[in-house]
């Protein structure tokens, strides 16, 4: 081959051949086509940016005029007041009713309008509150054909589709109720709550139209809709609403809830719904917002009628994509695969809302992709700014970030490390009835306490999650009722952890596993199955790569006290491993505590929550009859002090038993361009009153 090349050397002749020329032309053609497309694309962006700048100039001038004169001005007035240096290039200003301006906000929306003079894409008008336009949302979760937020607690489903629905009662970020589809929040004082908290009467709003309502065939919300939703959807399929099944005397086989009594209204329907719990049930009002109890249209699933026995499948409940919310379902996988789209509900019962024409949702599941999408302006709003990027978005004047305790699937979440209290591979039944053998290592509460004290939760927060959140102070999220502050959790102390492990039979000569040279071994361990010299290896099962950095901190912390912690990242089978086979030592979950301990905390400890369903519940396999009694009594206790004391008792008990390490409270950070405003970030109805100026 070498000689052949040498032979060729002297033969070169100048000039291109025809074929070479052709090839070069084709390459140039392709490249120039690409460049032309690229440049033309940016050209469009250029002019739409110019329109936006022009509109913004006008708006700034109007607000300045308003600040001086108490009203908005005509273009000439702005010019003579030197608030505009020249006439707007693209926009005309029309004054509205001429009333006093009140700055930004709903009240001033019609006081002036700017409209576009040029017929071009990208030139939009808009007044003090811009109407119209599509909000582009970068989603953390992939698109999902499961669209009914009443039949699922999936984070993706809720983040994508909650805007199509309403609940009966809205909750603010702290969990305080306000009326939504119900006209008033029931209280003991107004007679809405009777029977010591066992009976709730809700009066429904009238003239609320469903998305499928037409002028010819109007379709209004009525009491049967609510009963149907509870019977056939919520109590059957919503993992947290199912908490109410037993107290409501629900029959899950026939899908009938005789204790819910619906009385339809007359003109434009509405009506009243009475919920007769078998015993007082206090958390109820926290379970009626759009996340916990979205309302579906009644009798909308073919073959299923309110009050008639029969259970639809989850897929059946999903087929009906109709709600009362500000946005209507439009499409999935359009304009490109993975996209979802909702459009403005023109008949929304809150007059004037929503301002937006629609929301286009596009999945950016990779953190880096979500960041670049927001940075580059491809999207207006992201649900979840990746932790490392929060600081730079917060610092930028083009973006706004807001932390909220709410995630798509449920609010007030806490990272918890889960101890498998029983031997790996124990059946769910034996764990639940208490006959399963203890976990050979973690069955010892002192080892659990050692691990708790070895974990540097400040480091976990600051390094593993970029400081976003706060270290847990109690087993109940500090954001909700019942959280205790005077039961100290075991403090971070390497020496205390070392001492506990030494005393627990793990003080043999250190050994080497891989590159870790200080791994503890057993010496005189009380469990005869653990021979002297057995290395202290505790397996960590990680169900999602989101936890990578955080688990790295845990691994490093445990290595410091001589524990070897091999990690398995097992996205698909993790839940099976934990909830069916119980084949793990440590596991990590982010538990949504909900707005009441009964909703999100009970399920982590109650014996009846040791089950095979994949919903995050009693993963530790914790079993304590006294704790169960605390919860059950508290749910039936209207008196706040008594209720508080019951939760105090629960917390004292679990802090002694340590089935979990309560790591940190994990708010989520929403990020959006400052071109848009009016978001209510803690709910899926976040864009109900949002608007964008471009």
């Amino acid at each position, binding site marked *: 081959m070498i000689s052949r090349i040498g032979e060729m*050397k002297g033969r*070169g002749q100048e000039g291109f051949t025809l074929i*070479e020329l052709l090839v070069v032309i084709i390459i140039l053609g392709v490249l120039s086509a690409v460049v032309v497309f*690229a440049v033309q694309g940016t050209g469009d962006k250029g002019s739409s940016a110019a329109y936006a700048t022009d509109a913004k100039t006008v708006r700034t001038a109007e607000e300045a005029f308003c600040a001086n004169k108490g009203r908005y001005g005509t273009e000439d007035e702005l010019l003579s007041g030197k608030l505009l240096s020249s006439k707007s290039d693209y926009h005309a200003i029309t004054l509205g009713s001429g009333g006093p301006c009140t700055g930004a906000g709903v009240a001033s929306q019609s006081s002036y309008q700017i409209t576009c003079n040029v017929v071009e894409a990208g030139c939009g008008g808009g007044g003090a509150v811009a109407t119209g336009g599509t909000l582009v949302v970068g989603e953390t979760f992939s698109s999902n054909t499961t669209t009914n937020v009443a039949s699922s607690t999936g984070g993706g489903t809720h983040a994508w589709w909650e805007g199509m629905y309403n609940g009966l009662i809205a909750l603010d970020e702290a969990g305080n109720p306000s009326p939504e589809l119900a006209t008033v929040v029931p209280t003991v004082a107004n007679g809405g709550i009777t029977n010591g908290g066992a009976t709730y009467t809700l009066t429904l709003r009238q003239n609320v139209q469903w998305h499928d309502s037409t002028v010819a065939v109007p379709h209004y919300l009525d009491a049967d809709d609510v009963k149907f939703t509870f019977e056939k959807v919520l109590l059957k399929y919503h993992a947290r609403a199912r908490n109410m099944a037993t107290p409501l005397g629900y029959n899950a086989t026939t899908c009938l809830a005789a204790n819910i009594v619906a009385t339809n209204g007359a003109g434009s329907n509405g009506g009243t719904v009475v919920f007769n719990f078998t015993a007082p049930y206090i958390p109820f009002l926290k379970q009626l917002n759009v996340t916990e109890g979205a309302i579906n249209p009644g009798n909308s699933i073919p073959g299923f009628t309110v009050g008639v026995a029969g259970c639809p499948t989850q897929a059946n409940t999903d087929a009906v994509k109709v709600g009362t919310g500000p946005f209507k379902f439009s499409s999935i996988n359009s304009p490109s695969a993975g996209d979802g789209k909702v459009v403005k509900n023109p008949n929304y019962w809150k007059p004037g809302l929503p301002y937006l024409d629609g929301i286009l949702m596009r*999945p950016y599941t990779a953190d880096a992709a979500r960041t*670049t999408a927001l940075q*580059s302006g*491809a999207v207006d709003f992201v649900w979840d700014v990746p932790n490392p990027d929060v600081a730079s978005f917060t610092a930028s004047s083009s973006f706004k970030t807001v932390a909220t305790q709410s995630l798509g699937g449920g609010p007030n979440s806490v990272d918890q490390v889960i101890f498998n209290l029983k031997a790996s591979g124990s059946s769910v039944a034996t764990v639940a009835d208490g006959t399963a053998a203890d976990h050979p290592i973690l069955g010892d509460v002192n080892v659990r306490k050692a691990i708790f004290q070895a974990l540097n939760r400040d480091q976990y927060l600051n390094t593993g999650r970029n400081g976003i959140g706060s270290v847990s102070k109690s087993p109940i999220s500090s954001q909700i009722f019942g959280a205790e502050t005077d039961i100290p959790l075991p403090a971070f102390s390497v020496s205390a952890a070392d001492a506990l492990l030494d005393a627990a039979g793990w003080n043999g000569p250190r050994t080497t596993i891989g590159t870790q040279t200080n791994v503890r071994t057993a010496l005189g361990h009380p469990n005869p199955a653990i021979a002297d010299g057995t290395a202290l290896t505790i397996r960590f099962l990680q169900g999602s790569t989101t936890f990578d950095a955080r688990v790295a901190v845990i691994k490093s912390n445990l290595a410091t006290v001589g524990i070897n912690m091999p990690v398995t990242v097992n996205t*698909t089978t993790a839940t099976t491993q934990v909830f069916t086979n119980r084949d793990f030592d440590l596991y990590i979950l982010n538990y949504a505590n909900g707005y009441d301990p009964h909703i999100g905390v009970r399920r982590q400890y109650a014996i009846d929550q040791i089950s095979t369903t994949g*919903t995050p519940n009693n993963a530790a396999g914790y079993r304590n009859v006294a704790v169960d009694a605390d919860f059950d009594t508290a749910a039936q206790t209207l008196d706040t002090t008594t209720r508080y004391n019951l939760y105090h008792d629960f917390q004292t008990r679990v802090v002694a038993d340590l089935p979990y390490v309560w790591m940190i409270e994990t708010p989520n950070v929403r990020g959006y361009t400052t071109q848009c405003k009016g978001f209510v970030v803690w709910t899926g109805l976040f864009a109900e009153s949002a608007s964008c100026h471009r």
Partner: protein
Amino acid sequence: MLWAVNRRYVVRRLLQVVPTVLGIVTLSFALVHLTPGDPAREFAGEGADQAQIDAARSYLGLDRPVPEQFTTYLRHLLHGDLGTSYAQRMPVTEVIGIRLSATLLLTGTALVVSTVAGVGFGVLAARRPLRWLDNAVSTASLLVYSLPAFWLAQLAIMALALKVHLFPAGGMTDAREAYTGLAAARDIAHHLALPALVLALSETALVVRVTRAGLLQQAGQEYVRSARAKGLPQEQAVARHALPNALLPVLTIVGSRVGYLVSGAVLVESVFGWPGLGKALVDAAQAGDHPVILGMVLLVSATVVTANLATDMACAWIDPRIAAR
């Protein structure tokens, strides 16, 4: 006579495909069914009780013996039915169909660009072997071939999308504007350029090397020399006689390159948020959505088999000696 040889070759080649395809189906089916996890639970949805899970199991046929499941699967496959997605609860063909065009567009563009550019640069390099141009092209191609595509992709976004704003940072269409007609095509092309170029880069490097090696080898062959002896200038002798033969190896690797491109697309798609099969694969793998994964493995395998078959046919057509072998 020649055609007779070719026809026998064609038939033989087609017959060979049958056991291969059967092997692929069996292998994928086994892979998917040997894995842990409970699809019925997945299908029944979160919070389903045991009765619902059992119902889902029987609906999906998972309570049948495995051999029966296999024959059922084969029978459905013959009818173009790939089963139902556990996670999405819709036909697998639909799940894949939605994503297929995006991946075809991306990989197809990359295939064309890399072939054209690769042959072009290969010819340039081979014109004067071991001179600066050849050295530059060869070194660059080797270097490019050694860099991971996802790394290049990230750098490309940083430089060309975020710093220079020449290209969009991701996605296939502008989410803000609903373009139609020519404007829509332009929009897609604008989004396509960067991922397609990144994906095409390492393949270009490969084609450069194959073209160059082929040309150098052919240039030394007897027939080129005799063409030269007949007074044809070297350039023309190479162009007219050597190039077609030198391009044969470029053709033969098209089949395997299709496989490489689709795999490369998985990574490039995930960086660029390109809504193709790659993203669907990662989603499906995380959701334990067996039928979708199985369908995708089958689809890609079938594409590779078909591409190999097509290139073999094309080679036999261009150079009948291959068929006679």
